[in-house]
């Protein structure tokens, strides 16, 4: 395995690493916990979550870190470690937010979802847990107000990733929660006690053999409360699965928001919004449920963007070791074809177990790259014969501009056990930086080292809707530059237990000016701007 991992080249000394770790000064002493390092139970292996967005309205990106707990705390009836809010300084570093942003510990935090739930123009937060999903309303940039008890999200089970969308286009934001499995520490066998083995080694049990949970859809009332509409929306039509990742997208280009769910060891789901309050599960027909061999994969994280400029968004899905990460490219018929191998994304991913990921232009050269945070679930992966390892290097798949990706180390090439990650421009220099969570230990802040010269321009578009959700989730931003079209959807879903700011980032390469920028708002209204200067953060307001 060491040989395999060493095949991933470190960035050359000439170019330097794509990202540089600044966590030591950006977020000193901030650590996360997810059970015991021994990983005797499946509850201890998926890690925590994070949300990146401007919560206090100062134009700088802030951070919420969702922490887990330990089984000892659970046994004693103690709460989990509290989620923590950090306010951005605009230079890539953070400072702890004041008392008004402090939160009590929940049960066992996992992920986040982000949107203006109460329509007051401020971004609110949902936190998934092994336990009930929490709802935190933003008090006009002054702090959090927890409304979980009245939010109507139910008792909860084990939510992993969640996504905010306006599925019924009523202007009030809704919430989709992917659930994992029924876990009761009194009933699930511990590692070594029940013959749960992987490659000949005793490992924690699950997910196979445990009971998967159905996803849930909650319709927002626009005041921070929700109603469970899973049944009327048609979600029970799909068999429950081990849900881990969620992405919002318009897969069939019919101007409403669909959902893709990455499931662990079960077929992935593609929920197509029928426009009448219901969804149809079309993962198999759509070509995203399995790999090209017809095998269910153990999927975790999701990246989504229009890779080939055809106007339809494509999906990148991280998978278990021994499986390749899957790249599903949308076709003219609005179904997907797996293109992992011919694009170079398959082979280098096989020894890895991937989690947080995104399709984004990380080097500002005008095409989309991919980052993947890796790390195994089994500490036993370091035993002989596994063809993988517990700690693994994070990867950058750099687009070579010729429809292939070339793998390199994301930062220093060190092996770590990573989980969720999210991109945002933390230092306001126009490129996307990364916050990465380990399974346990120090939270990492990775500063993008993309060059800012004549060949590397950028544009960030921030749509602001006049009606309904001010942050315009679901808006479609199309940019024409140098005769090349790029499309982004405004979303906050970060793919795996993470949330990102509701804005569209474009790398432009050598283009100093965009010929045409079009923003299609969720209301259907469109705003077109000609000749936009590059290298700016452009707020596009919907006409009243």
């Amino acid at each position, binding site marked *: 395995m060491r040989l395999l991992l060493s095949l991933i080249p470190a960035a050359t000394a000439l170019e330097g690493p794509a990202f540089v770790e600044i966590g030591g000064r950006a977020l000193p002493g901030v650590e996360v916990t997810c059970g015991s390092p021994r990983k005797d139970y499946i509850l201890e292996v998926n890690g925590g979550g994070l949300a990146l967005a401007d919560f206090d309205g100062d134009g700088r990106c802030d951070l919420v870190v969702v922490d887990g707990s330990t089984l000892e705390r659970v046994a004693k009836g103690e709460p989990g470690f509290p989620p923590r809010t950090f306010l951005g300084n605009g230079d890539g570093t953070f400072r702890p937010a004041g008392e008004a942003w402090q939160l009590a510990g929940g049960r066992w935090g996992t992920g986040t979802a982000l949107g203006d739930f109460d329509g007051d123009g401020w971004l609110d937060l949902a936190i998934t847990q092994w336990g009930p999903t929490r709802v935190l309303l933003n008090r006009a940039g002054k702090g959090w107000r927890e409304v979980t008890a009245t939010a109507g999200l139910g008792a909860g089970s084990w939510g992993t990733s969640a996504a905010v969308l306006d599925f019924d286009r009523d202007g009030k934001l809704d919430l989709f929660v992917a659930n994992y499995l029924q876990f009761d520490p009194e009933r699930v066998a511990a590692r070594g006690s029940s013959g749960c083995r992987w490659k000949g080694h005793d490992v924690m049990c699950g997910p196979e053999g445990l009971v998967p949970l159905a996803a849930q859809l909650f319709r927002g009332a626009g005041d921070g409360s929700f109603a469970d509409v899973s049944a009327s929306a048609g979600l029970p039509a799909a068999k429950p699965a081990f849900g881990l990742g969620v992405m919002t997208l318009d897969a069939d280009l019919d101007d409403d928001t669909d959902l893709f769910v990455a499931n662990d060891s079960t077929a992935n789901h593609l929920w197509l919004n029928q426009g009448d309050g219901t969804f149809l599960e079309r993962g198999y027909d759509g070509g995203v449920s399995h790999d090209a061999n017809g095998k269910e994969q153990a999927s975790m994280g999701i990246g989504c963007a229009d890779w080939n400029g055809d106007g339809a968004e494509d999906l990148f899905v991280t998978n278990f070791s021994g499986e390749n990460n899957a790249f599903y490219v949308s076709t003219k018929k609005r179904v997907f074809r797996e293109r992992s191998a011919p694009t170079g994304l398959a082979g280098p991913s096989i020894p890895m177990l991937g989690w947080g990921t995104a399709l984004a232009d990380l080097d500002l050269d005008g095409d989309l790259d991919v980052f993947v945070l890796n790390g195994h679930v089994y500490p036993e992966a370091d035993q*002989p014969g596994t*063809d993988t390892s517990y700690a693994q290097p994070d990867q950058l798949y750099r687009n070579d501009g010729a429809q292939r990706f070339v793998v390199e180390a994301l930062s220093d090439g060190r092996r770590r056990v990573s989980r969720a990650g999210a991109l945002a421009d933390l230092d306001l220099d126009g490129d996307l930086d990364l916050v990465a969570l380990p399974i346990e230990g120090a939270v990492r802040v990775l500063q993008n080292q993309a060059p800012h010269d004549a060949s590397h321009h950028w544009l960030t578009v921030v749509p602001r809707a006049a009606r309904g959700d001010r942050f315009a989730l679901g808006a479609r931003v199309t940019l024409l530059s140098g005769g090349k079209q790029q499309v982004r959807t405004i979303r906050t879903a970060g793919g795996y237990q993470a949330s990102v700011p509701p804005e569209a980032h474009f790398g432009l390469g050598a283009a100093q000016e965009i010929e045409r920028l079009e923003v299609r708002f969720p209301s259907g209204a469109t705003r077109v701007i000609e000749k936009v200067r590059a290298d700016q953060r452009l707020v596009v307001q919907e006409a009243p």
Partner: protein
Amino acid sequence: MIAALLLALGPLAGPGVRASSAQAPVAQAAGPTAAQLDALRRAALRRDPRALPRAPREHWPELLRWTAERERWPEGFGAAARALAEHDPARAVHELCALLERVPDFPPALHQLGVVYFRLQRYGDAAVPLERFLELAPERVAETRALAHAYYTLGRYAEARDHYQRVLAAEPRTAEAMRGLALSHLRLGDNARAQELLQQLLQLEPEHADAHAWLAQLLYDEEQLEAALAEALRARDLAPAVPRAWFLLGRIQGELGQHDAARAARERYETLAAAAQEVRGLEARLVFEPRSAPLVRRLIEVHAASGDIPALRAALARASALEPGSFELACLALGALERAGDLEGAARAAALLEERFAERAETWRLLEGWFARRKDLQRQLQAGERYRRLSAPR
């Protein structure tokens, strides 16, 4: 392999049907306990083949001469072969590693160890002894297809392609190497070369189901749906118990608007895929419990339900080695073979029951049903009569 079952249970095999030594039941000599064997297997699987000693290069010619004299092969090789015959690959690893510690780099043991690791799906470990084998005996490259398979499975497609090419240069008509080379090209993005190689393979073996399935996949990816459909149908007809062809069929037919056929194909795929998943789980457990009759019986049930006749026959042979002369197994065999559609095998199982277990009432109850379904009225009546006579209170 049904022959092995029949030989194990009774002398009813037809002419020309013989059990191989690998399939024959192996007597349990007094030896290690189950717990000791379990510990031995676990220890074997914790071994790292990279740590095995190397022979000095000056000893290699002698090792190669030794390889040619099979009767002089070192002790341990036979034990490994017996372990494999008993479906106990972990024990085979133990024996082969022990041999290679006594006789470093003994080529047959390196080769066998690589193959066993490959079967255990430990691909990185498989590559180590096979690379050493090739280093010692480069002229025997044709025997190292598994090395290319290992590279491929590890995602090292360029290395896989290069090694398949070496294998094919030595042995041009090796179907599995040709298939592997085609898939390596496919993975490297050279669809045209992959298609060409798959066509060549089908000239060599027109009934290679997997080649048809991959051709279907390739054509489907290129949006040639009608041509893809023809290949997928051919793959399904040749290997109806393999899920992949059904998976492709469902997708292709769906995109062609053949919705009823697509739905049926998908349902069949889901049934077979669920069975395949259970089989993988059972086989993983059998690595540690190779003599578990309940696990093998479950394997029989799953293969029977999915209609995978070759796999069912293999499982029956394995069960018969574990439970020679078992009446319950003979009954299970009749039902499983008939359910899977293997009427020839079922007929032999029925004959076996009649011959070996004629004194049991249950035999005749089963045979009455069997003959009824075969529409053999006379024998049905005879069996029914025997059943009633034997089951009547005395």
